[in-house]
């Protein structure tokens, strides 16, 4: 085991390989508060990449309801149960990661799913955490709550799938940090399926190899965001690049949201993989659940997000989500507009920070017709 620095748990940790960060790292923002679980992202991915034989059950992108939705079943509950409780001392994780708690005969602490675990991709959909009492009403944090969690491969800085593959058939691309299974070299041992705590590597029983989200790398190479990002009708996603914290750039929207405003957080940072999809936590969910899921910064992230409307920079970035098919490398707020730029700082999107609201009369005199929708 080598020692590597994981900034998400703010300490050194053990990893199977020495730490080498890519030239740039695929990063993404998912605003959970805007997701309506329409599954358009799921379908976009499905029809693009997993329409082959043996891929019928695969959803490289899925959206599940929390707390009772899972794909595969109980993936997060099992990962956390295996790991056991771990304390945070401020922003330093004092517990063990899945690499540090690997059993003697394993490279990584993991569990092997079976086909049954994938048989109910919509289990728990729309279910709230408990029965709603008579007379209950919603304000602030909800007593009865649920939310939608859209998930793809996190293209982790320290991937468990990569660490677990005894053949070295999984690699992290130097040019963009995207994690891939070498389809020429894989022998279908399923060690990656067992190791990935997010369960985002899938075994193709027809072909005898494992397969996973490729972050639509042909599009990334062309400067475009992946299919599931551009298909998102809720505009919850933005793909860009995340720098290491010591090289954070304030005009990089991912860096700004993650490091400067700390409003976007990694999923289960305590597992130790340094995942690179960053979530804006749901504002109505109790702190204990968000802290378990997104780490100790979850409550502050919610507080910051709730005030975003009064903050032109934050509000501006959020309007850039889903406003361009191109990868957003940089941003700028100019007047009442947010502008997105590509890697050469060419303008790729310009949107109003606040959408103008136009109110129309409920009865159109010119057309002599009534309207239901007046704004």
């Amino acid at each position, binding site marked *: 085991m080598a020692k590597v620095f994981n900034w998400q748990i703010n300490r050194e940790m053990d990893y199977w390989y020495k730490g080498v960060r890519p030239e740039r790292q695929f990063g993404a923002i998912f605003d959970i508060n805007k997701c309506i679980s329409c599954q358009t992202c799921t379908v976009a991915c499905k*029809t693009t990449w997993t*329409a*082959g*034989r*043996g*891929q*019928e059950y695969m959803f490289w992108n899925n959206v599940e309801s929390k707390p009772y939705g899972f794909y595969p079943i109980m993936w997060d509950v099992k990962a956390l149960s295996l790991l056991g409780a771990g304390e945070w001392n401020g922003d330093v994780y004092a517990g063990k990661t899945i690499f540090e708690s690997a059993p003697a*005969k*394993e*490279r990584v602490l993991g569990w*092997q*799913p*079976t*086909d049954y*675990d*994938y048989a109910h991709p919509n289990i728990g959909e729309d279910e709230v955490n408990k029965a709603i009492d008579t007379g209950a009403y919603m304000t602030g944090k909800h007593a009865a709550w649920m939310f939608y969690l859209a998930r793809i491969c996190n293209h982790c800085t320290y991937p468990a799938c990569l660490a*677990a593959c*005894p*053949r*070295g058939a999984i690699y992290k691309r130097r040019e963009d940090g995207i994690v891939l299974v*070498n*389809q*020429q*070299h*894989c*022998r*279908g*041992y*399923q*060690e990656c*399926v067992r190791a990935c705590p997010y369960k985002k590597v*899938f*075994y*193709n*029983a*027809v*072909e*005898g*190899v494992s*397969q996973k989200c490729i972050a639509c790398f042909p599009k990334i190479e062309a400067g475009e965001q992946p299919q599931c990002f551009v298909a998102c009708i809720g505009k919850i996603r933005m793909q860009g690049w995340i720098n290491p914290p010591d090289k954070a750039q304030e005009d990089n929207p991912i860096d700004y949201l993650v490091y400067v405003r700390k409003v976007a957080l990694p999923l289960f940072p305590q597992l130790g993989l340094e995942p690179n999809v960053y979530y804006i936590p749901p504002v109505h969910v109790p702190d204990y659940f968000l802290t378990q899921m997104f780490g100790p910064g979850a409550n502050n992230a919610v507080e910051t997000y709730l005030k975003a409307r009064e903050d032109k920079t934050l509000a501006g970035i959020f309007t850039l989500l889903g406003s361009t098919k191109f990868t957003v490398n940089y941003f700028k707020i100019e007047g009442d507009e947010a502008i997105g730029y590509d890697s050469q700082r060419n303008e790729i999107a310009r949107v109003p920070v606040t959408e103008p609201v136009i109110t129309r009369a409920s009865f159109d005199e010119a057309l002599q017709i009534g309207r239901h929708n007046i704004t």
Partner: protein
Amino acid sequence: MRIFIALSMLSIFISCEKPKVSEDRIKAVFAEGDLREITYADPKWKEAFETTVKLETQQIALPKLEEPGVSEVRTKVLYNDKWLAFLLDWNDATQDKLTQIGLFSDAAAIQFPSQQGELPDNAMGGLPGSAGSVVIHQWKAVWQEASLGNIKGVKTFYPNTWSDVYIFEEVKQGSRAEMEKMYTTSVAAGNPLAHHGAAVRDLEAAGFGSVDFSPEQSSKGSGLWKEGKWSVVIVRPVKREKGSLELSKLQYMAFAVWDGSHGETGARKMRSGWIPIQFVR
């Protein structure tokens, strides 16, 4: 009446005929003819010595098996100037001939040093980087099923399932095969160890984690599971670019067996050290 009893006793004796046993080394017996087509049912095997090879849990490289699997494999070897035929028998209560999520294939492999002379580490050559090289001939039940055309898509695993249309089946113009290949990435990438190809494949390794498809594919074989026992035949040429055997000298070989339903795959396996093999004439 006495003649009838005597004949009955003789038939019982014949049916219970014990195999010739070699305990300290494998003794290969000369057999005429083309051994390439030999099966586990061939009467020639009755002339061969049987050696029971003890297997132990792979304990060198991670990951490892939690609990030991198949503890021994019974081995017979026939040979002539061109071919070597190996019969491997082992007890396995379950026939695992397909893989699925969390389910693995039964398999067996025999291993030889790539070159005559000093023996490399028996664990696939040893530590990567400083390892010797070995040649491996591996049989997998799932490869055999695939080679027989028995893996036909999702319905092989779930006969009553229903799936949306496959895009490549809707191709009206151009090559449907080319389109299907695009959606079969292991084929498109030219993966020689996926579920397409022969039941037995020749591999080379220079240290654990390095096993790969050999450019020289010359062995063949098949297996039969019956009443809790696998009988697998692997036939290979005496001479090959790597792993040639000098039959006039004592040679060495090693074994590995995987029990799929016991979670055995890759490094999670039962294996032997080098076993001497003598070619008797």
